[in-house]
């Protein structure tokens, strides 16, 4: 049945992956599937552009309507369909890396909701898959698209090696809102929900409704609290403008009470220090005293140019501005890399993941931006790369 339905659709619209890179299909229309159909799902799908015909819906809560033609509970069956070009992912983040990678393996392009993944190693794997398979990947947040390209240009020149810059972002992280329950009742799994599939790569826990349906953000198994929900929005533009998506911080310190082993909770501020001296601070404004170690400074184009020699400064001024970033709808048409591609998004995601490593470990984290591992603290490094429950792997 599924094969018949797929063949019928394919007769109308030739999927791009059948034609290969650089070839124009007879139709500018694409076919897409949405995996994770709750709250953000339809909005994420819409972000793929106007010419995308939705041919499949997949959600672990569709046990009561899965027909193997339009509705699915298992994304693997969606990815088996050769008549689908694009995948929009709006599942809880525990699934993001797995589905993103598998979709690219199957030749699909991907628009994935933030946060990019649960852990640093998962995001690295997505970026590696994007490179290996030459597919389009875009994270579902777009702050960088309005970033200052004149500042970006200075960092892209590669001439900046020493900064005296401090950027402090205050508020907007929904820390208390997206905390997890430390006391809960174990309930029966609703009949329409495939709970084992919902947990996926995370440990299979007894069911509690708070772990499902938006409030999943409050559990380390699936997400990273308010940071998981909000940080990519706040960080995307900053990382683009200041070239922080080409590197990573080397020292991370969190001010927070001891973290719970399963439920996300409160934190006050996190201070990131980059190898070039750039200091970035996120202050939640929701717990403890506000960050007061340093004042914000050195952020303007003139401030940054002033760190260069006169000769280098002139070189930068003579350089053209970076090209405007390519939107997902344009990227899938032109096969140019999307603005929020996986490698850049990984560097953005690394910040909130490292923040959570510091919060959860209760220790100052020294991080190697090249190997992407914690230095001198093997137990903290375990939070960089958590194993997945069988059979899930990236």
């Amino acid at each position, binding site marked *: 049945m599924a094969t018949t339905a797929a063949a019928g659709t394919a007769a109308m619209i030739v999927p791009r992956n059948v034609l290969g890179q650089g070839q124009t299909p007879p139709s500018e229309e694409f076919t897409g599937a949405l995996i994770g159909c709750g709250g953000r799902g339809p909005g994420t799908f819409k972000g793929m552009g106007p010419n995308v015909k939705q041919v499949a819906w997949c959600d672990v809560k569709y046990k009561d309507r899965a027909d193997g033609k339009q509705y699915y509970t298992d994304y693997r069956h969606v990815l088996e369909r050769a008549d689908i070009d694009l995948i929009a992912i709006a599942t809880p983040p525990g699934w993001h890396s797995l589905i993103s990678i598998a979709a690219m393996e199957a030749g699909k392009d991907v628009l994935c909701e933030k946060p990019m993944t649960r852990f640093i190693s998962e995001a690295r794997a997505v970026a590696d898959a994007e490179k290996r398979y030459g597919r389009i990947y875009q994270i579902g947040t777009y702050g960088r698209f309005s970033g200052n390209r004149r500042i970006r240009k200075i960092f892209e020149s590669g001439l900046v090696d020493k900064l005296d810059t401090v950027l402090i972002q205050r508020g907007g992280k929904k820390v208390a809102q997206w905390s997890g329950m*430390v006391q809960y009742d174990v309930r029966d799994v609703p009949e329409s929900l495939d709970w084992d599939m919902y947990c996926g790569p995370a440990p299979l826990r007894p069911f509690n409704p708070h772990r499902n349906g938006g409030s999943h953000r409050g559990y380390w198994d699936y997400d990273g609290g308010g940071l998981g929900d909000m940080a990519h929005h706040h960080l995307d533009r900053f990382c683009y403008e200041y070239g922080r998506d080409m590197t990573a911080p080397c020292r991370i310190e969190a001010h927070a*009470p001891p973290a719970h082993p399963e439920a996300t909770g409160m934190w006050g501020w996190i201070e990131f220090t980059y190898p070039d001296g750039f200091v970035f601070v996120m202050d939640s404004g929701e717990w403890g005293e506000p960050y007061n170690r340093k004042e914000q400074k050195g952020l303007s184009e003139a401030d940054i140019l002033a760190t260069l020699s006169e000769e280098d400064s002139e070189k930068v001024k003579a350089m053209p501005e970076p090209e405007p970033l390519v939107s997902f709808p344009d990227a899938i048409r032109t096969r140019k890399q999307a603005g929020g591609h996986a490698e850049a998004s990984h560097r953005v995601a690394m910040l909130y993941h490292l923040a959570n490593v510091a919060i959860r470990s209760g220790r100052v984290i020294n991080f190697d931006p090249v190997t992407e591992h914690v230095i001198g603290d093997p137990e903290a490094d375990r939070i960089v790369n958590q194993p997945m429950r069988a059979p899930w792997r990236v």
Partner: protein
Amino acid sequence: MAVNENLKKLVDQMPDPDSRRMFTKDMDKEKIERAVAEIFKGGAVNFQGLIDILGVPGSAENVKPHYALHCVLNHALIVKDEKARKTFCEILANALGGDYPDYTKAYFCQELQWAGRDEALAALGRTLESDTLCDPAAMALVTIGGDGAADQLRRALPGAEGARRLTIIHSLAALADPKAAGDLEKALGDDDLEVRIAAGTGLAAIGDARAVSALLKAADGKSGWERIQACKNCFVLAENLVESGKASDAKKLYEAIAKWNGPQEQHLKEIAQKALASA
């Protein structure tokens, strides 16, 4: 064992959940850390005591001891007290053989995943024999890593069936254990599709040139999800071979991939052709 009153008082210093049953109000860092440090000072007696006062998972009486146990174990890492960390983990490992509910034992596995090292391996290895605890035990072993963890998994493999067999093959693959290469190659012919895929993943990660023909065979004639994953395993092996200087073996894989014509494989074909052109 009777838990001493002083420990109970210290555990009671942990925060109370708020009206949403969360730790979002009155999180007094100094107060929590003082109590945690005090419990920690009590050493093995208090470590065992924390285990003994755990309540039913999720219940009100479990909230404080559950949190305190994790904080005290993590405190050993914060103050870098290796002796205390080892002692606590030995106690947790012993508790895996004790009379506790499986969900509580899963919590012990989780804590050993957080802070355990060699002292936890044997107990975690024995726990692989449990149908309900095999997953958390295996995840802890993979996290601890190294030859000792792989030894435990390999030892458990012959007696494992069904979901446990999948978990163990999956974990050996995650560790990319070269000593498991023979078992993984055998598992490529398993009846369980996920076991076959996991075995291929492991062989690709190990990156031994002897796996070239086995992985190509594993992809041959397959369709759907298994074919997608088997193709990925071929690519990963090819990349690992190139990285280890075995370009001629990688070439065999790329030459085979360049001939693939599956409905979702045009992009794979192009990548392989590019790899061959740049070789």
